[in-house]
């Protein structure tokens, strides 16, 4: 029924089956929009955040999703600046995912702040000493860049490209794409880092506070490293997942191998840097602020096992798998390692946002925990549903994977 919209030569499931796939996600989005409506109308008392847990599930989600979305800029950098042409097989998908990650994060941020209509205040009264100002400016600019990278993909839809002005504009945009990719890389470098800087500068929170270089705490550099290390893994994981769900072969195996190798090397460097940073933090930085490091992990739900899991199980292990030619040739190991790497960056963001707030700063305060309310969880799931819906539409009607047609013909 919608065949004229589908890329010529590609096989997609029937319209009915597509609608059946979309329906539950649309329902989830609906529930999420209801929760968002409640939060915007009634106020943030709809969440379980409180004065001790000023940041909760949403901020964790924002950081995690932006870290995973780093695959967009990094793949663009590798393709347009370093000229690794094999990655043209996944760049479109990576850009769409990046766009969805950043737009979702900004959407949630607008619900998270107490006064969303004042969002422009950061631009009008910027505090140039604050990491959050930098983050705000950067992700706004970067979302613009991502929109202009997504636009050509949309304009190349089978029916839209028949409009001459769209086709010509797409052609000209594509010619300047390396400039946008470069700007995107510059912006991403800074905001991935500043998201780490958000926590590293908190001198009031010895759990998060780090020394660093000039105005940038070590978490600035660690966040950039972890983001670019896991970006290719997430691209790999999503490509594999989409291939599995749709039942199609989307890229040649060599593409996965390249992504895995890049991820592996960067992960290895990140794990080494993280170990050094952790040792410095536990032995120098934290004791200097008067905190006893053993107390950071004294409370059972967040014992030292968290540190071990983050660095070894979710960091070192996938790095070793990716660097082993024998293991990464096997899809099970490859995808498993990619999943672990993504879990690692998600765990790291969780530790920095949630675990930081559980640790008391005053000696007469207890450790505290928080569980998100259903409105918070529904909002989170709304972002996931939004991403799945838009990605599904893009997969069906746009040429996300240039190699798919050749691989289909066998």
């Amino acid at each position, binding site marked *: 029924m919608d*065949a004229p919209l589908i*890329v*010529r*030569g590609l096989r997609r499931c029937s319209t009915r089956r597509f609608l059946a796939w979309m329906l539950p996600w649309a329902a989830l989005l609906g529930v999420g929009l209801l929760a968002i409506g409640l939060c915007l109308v009634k106020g943030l008392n709809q969440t379980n955040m409180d004065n001790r847990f000023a940041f909760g599930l949403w901020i964790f989600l924002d950081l995690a999703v932006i870290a995973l979305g780093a695959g967009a800029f990094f793949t663009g950098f590798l393709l347009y600046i370093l000229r690794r042409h094999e990655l043209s097989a996944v760049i479109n998908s990576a850009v769409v995912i990046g766009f969805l990650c950043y737009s979702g994060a900004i959407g949630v941020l607008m619900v998270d702040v107490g006064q969303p209509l004042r969002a422009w205040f950061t*631009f*009008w*009264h*910027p505090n*140039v*000493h604050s990491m959050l*100002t*930098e983050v705000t*400016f950067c992700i706004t*600019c970067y979302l*613009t*860049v991502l929109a*202009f990278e997504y636009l050509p993909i949309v304009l*190349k839809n089978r029916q839209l*490209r028949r409009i*001459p*002005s769209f*086709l*010509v*504009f*797409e*052609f*000209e*945009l594509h*010619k*300047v794409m390396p*400039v*946008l990719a470069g*700007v995107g890389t*510059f*912006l991403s470098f800074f905001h991935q880092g500043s998201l780490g800087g958000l926590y590293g500068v908190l001198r009031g929170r010895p759990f998060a506070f780090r020394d660093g270089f000039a105005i940038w705490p070590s978490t600035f550099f660690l966040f950039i490293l972890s983001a670019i290390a896991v970006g290719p893994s997430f691209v790999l994981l999503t490509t594999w997942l989409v291939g599995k769900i749709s039942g199609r072969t989307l890229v040649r195996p060599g593409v996965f191998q390249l992504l895995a190798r890049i991820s592996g090397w960067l992960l290895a460097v990140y794990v080494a840097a993280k170990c050094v940073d952790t040792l410095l933090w536990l032995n120098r930085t934290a004791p200097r602020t008067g905190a006893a490091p053993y107390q950071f992990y004294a409370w059972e739900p967040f014992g030292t096992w968290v540190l071990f899991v983050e660095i070894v199980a979710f960091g070192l292990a996938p790095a070793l798998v990716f660097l082993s030619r024998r293991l990464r040739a096997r899809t099970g190991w490859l995808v498993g390692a990619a999943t672990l790497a993504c879990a690692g960056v998600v765990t790291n963001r969780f530790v920095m946002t949630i675990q930081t707030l559980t640790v008391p700063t005053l000696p007469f305060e207890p450790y505290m925990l928080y569980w998100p309310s259903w409105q918070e969880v529904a909002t989170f799931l709304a972002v996931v549903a939004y991403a799945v819906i838009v990605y599904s539409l893009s997969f069906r009607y746009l*040429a996300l994977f*240039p190699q798919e*047609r*050749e691989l289909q*013909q*066998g």
Partner: protein
Amino acid sequence: MFPGIDGFAWDTGHIVFLGAFYTVLLAIAATVSLAAMRSRRDFRLHHEQAIRWQAEFHDLPASCRRCRHELSGEVADRTCGLGFDCRRCAEHARLLAARSGGLPKAAVSDGVAAGFRVLADRRYHRGHAWVRREPDGSAVVGLDDLGTRLLGEPDAVELPPVGSRVEVNGTGWTLTRNGVRARILAPIDGTVTAHGGPDCGWALRVKPDGDGADDRHLLAGEEARRWTAREAERLQIALAADGVGAALADGGVPLDDIARAITPSELDAACGLVFLEP
């Protein structure tokens, strides 16, 4: 941020930070504006057709973009980088010079390649249109046997208006069958002077540009026969049933009306491959 806000003062931090951001924003705006302005210029200079072909050629699968010299066995493995515009290709000129006698002489007789007729009085374009020079200096243009058999009896034909321009690799004319629109690429540059029809055996009469003798991008003779055979192979592979893999007929004749025997979506995919539309 601006003067008048209580307690604000410019310092180095502000200049560096805000300077960096507005530079970035300016860069983004300038880049996108440049693309927009170039688009307007492209329209003014009537480059849409050329751009459309360049974009579509780029999106074609590699199997559609094989160099004619690879098909004729002169080179091992070469993908065309110029949109089949051999008139501009240095490699083509070099290989022609190496081949004694320049352009291959048109074959003396008509031929058949994989069941499809390849006629001696015309030259073939990679998009399956052909050109025949008439004694009066005009050229007639039509669809070749493979294209005609694939589409069968079209449900609708859209020809460019008399007096309009056609350009090589731009839109020639459009045929519709079973809901599938096939755009036939124009094989020469020129002005349309008359419409043809199934009775005439041609689609358009064209007054060529300039001296109109530049046929370097067109195929004839043995080269055209090899190419037709290869195209027939590509068509059969595309139409092979799911799960069978690549299958080629080992005998028989092609149907007069292939479109009647296949589903619209198969016809759609086949037209894309044959008429070079991604």
